C-alpha cells in the first residue's frame, strides 16, 4: 500500500492508497507515531485511494486518533470510498471520527477548531 505524507501549515496529511489491512497496518502506525513524535498532533488521513479496511486498520486509526487527542490535536478522515464508509457506519466509528468529504473541509475544520 502507498503512503504519501505532506504538510499544510501545522497539519500533516497522510494519503493512503490500496488495501488497508493487517499487513499494511504496521507501516501506517509507524508513520502516525513518527508524525506525533515530531510534534504534529493535527493529522488528516486521506483514504481516497483505499478500497478496503479491516479491523487492524481501524484499530491503527483509532490508536492514532487517541494519541492526537491526548496531545490536544485530532485525526480527521476524508475522501472515504463507499465500501469503506459502509464499514465505518456498521462499526459506528462514524460517531467517533470526524469524517469529511474532501481534504479542504478537513483542513478547514482544524483551522476553526
Amino acid at each position, binding site marked *: 500500500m502507498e503512503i504519501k505524507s505532506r504538510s499544510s501549515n501545522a497539519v500533516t496529511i497522510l494519503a493512503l492508497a490500496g488495501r488497508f*489491512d*493487517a499487513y499494511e497496518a504496521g507501516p501506517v*502506525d509507524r508513520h502516525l507515531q513518527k508524525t506525533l513524535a515530531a510534534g504534529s498532533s493535527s493529522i488528516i488521513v486521506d483514504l481516497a485511494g483505499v478500497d478496503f479496511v*479491516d*479491523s*487492524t486498520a*481501524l*484499530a*491503527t486509526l*483509532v*490508536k492514532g486518533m*487517541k494519541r492526537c487527542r491526548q496531545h490536544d490535536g485530532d485525526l480527521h478522515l476524508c475522501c472515504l470510498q463507499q465500501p469503506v464508509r459502509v464499514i465505518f*457506519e*456498521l*462499526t*459506528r*466509528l462514524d*460517531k*467517533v471520527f470526524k469524517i469529511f468529504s474532501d481534504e479542504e473541509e478537513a483542513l478547514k475544520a482544524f483551522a476553526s477548531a
Partner: protein
Amino acid sequence: MKKVTLKSFLERQRPQFASLAEGWLAAGATSFVVWDGERSLAHWPHDRPPAPPDLKAPLQIETAVSGELRVSGLCGEEATARLAADARLISQLMQLEDELECMTAELIHSEDQLLALYNLSQATRSHLEIAPLAKAITQTIVQMLNVERACLIFKVADGAASVIGYPEMRSGSPGLCHFLEQLLASGAEFLENQKARSSELPDPAYNLLFLPIQTRGALVAGLGLINKVDGDFQTPDLKLARAVAGQTAVHMDNILLYQKSLKQARLQAEMDLAKNVQLQLLPQTPPLVEGLDLYAGSRPALQVGGDFYDFIVESGETFIFTLGDVSGKGLPAALLMAMTRTVLRSRAKSLPAPAPMHMLGEANEDLYDDFTDVGMFATVFVGRYDVGQRCLLYANAGHSPVIYCPAGERARLLVADGPAMGVLPVNLCEDQRVPFHPGDVVVVATDGFNEARNEAGDLFGYEQLLAQVEALSSQPARQIGEALFAAVVDFGRGHLQDDDQTLIVIKGATP
C-alpha cells in the same frame, strides 16, 4: 625483499671459498682475497696479510656489485679469464640463494595467511549475528593485510546500510561511510592506490580496496580496506582479500538463514499458543435453553484472530450469549480475546439481572485502558433471552454481521448503535429489543464471513450472507450454521482464509 649479502654468503659457504682459494694458491698465487668494497672479508693463506692484488673480478647480484675476488702473484690472460669465471659462478650462486630466500619468505607468509584464514573461519563460525561477525572479520583483516582500517558495510531492513569498522568508526567519518554506501550500490570491485588529485576518495583515505559480498546471487554486503600501511595493494593482497570476502559471504549466509528459521519458529510457536488459548475458551457445546434451538462454531484462520463467543445461563430462566472479535491477529489478539470474554462473563454473573448495555458499559470501563495501551479494540454483541418472553434483548458495540430473519420475512442486519469496546472511554450502546418467536432466526457472525475472499479477490459480502440466511431459515440451527460454513468455504476455495470465521445461530424452537 631481503637481499643476500656477500658477508652472509661467505659465512655459509666458507669451505667452498677455502677450496677455491687453495686451488689458486696451488696454481702459484700468493694470496686470494674476498673483498667487500671496503675491506677484506676473508683471505688465504691466513698466516700472512694479503699482498696487493694483481687480478680482480667483480661479484654481483643482478646489477649490484657487492664485492670482488682478488688474486696476487699471478697474471696473464688465462689467469684473468679463470678468475672472471670463478667470480661469475659465485655471483650466480649468490643470486640463486637470494631468490631462494625470497621464495621461502613468501611461502612462510602464505602459510601464515592460510593459518590466519583458518583461525578466522573457526572464530567466526559460531557467530549468530552480523555485527559480532563484522567486528571479528574487520579486526583480523587489519592485521592480515596490514591496513589502517577495515570496514564491513551491510544492508539492513528497509534498505538502509550499516557500517562496522575496525578501529571503530568515529562519528566524524561520514564521508567514508557515504563513499562505501555508493560502492555498495554499484556492487562492483573497486581499487585505488595512491589517491590522485581528481580522486573521489574521501579523506583520510589514500588507498582503498572494496570487495562486494554476495550470497545466493544477491549483494548483501561489502568489505572495504583502507590505507595499506606498507605501500600499495598488490595482487597477493587482492587474492587474500577476495578469499576473506568469500568466507564472509558463507558466514553471512549462514547467519541470515539461521535468523530466518528462528523467526519462523517463533511465529509458529506463537500461532500454536494462540490457537490453544482460543480452543480452551470457546464452549464446546451450546447449553439447552427452553424455547431455543442453538448452534455455535468457529473456523480459525492460520494465524488465529481474536474471535470469541460465550454462553451464560442464569437460573435456567435467563440465557445470555456474547460474541466478539478483537482487532488484530496472533497472540496479542488471543490474549485480549481471553480477557474480554472473561470480563463480560464476570459482569454477567455479578449483575442480578444483567442488561446487555450495562454488561458492555462496565466491561468497557474495566478494559478501556488495556485496549488503549495495546492499540486494539473489540467489537462485541451481547444478547439476552428470557424464557417465555418471546423477545431478544441486545446491545451491539460496533459488531457486524448480525442477521435477524423473522419466520417468513426478509433477513436484515441488526446494526450497532455504538462503537467497539476500547474505542471510547464511555460506552454509547443502548439496549435494543426485537421480537423472537418460534421459527425466527438470529445469526451472529464475525466479519470473517462477509470479508472472505475468493481467488479473484471478490468478497463474499453482506448481500450474499443475508440471502443465504433467508434461504436456510426454515432449517434447524445446526443445519443453518453448517450450511453457512460450507457456503463460505466453497466461495473461498483457492484463496487462503484471512480471518477467523465464527458464528452463533439462535432459532426460536417450535413448542
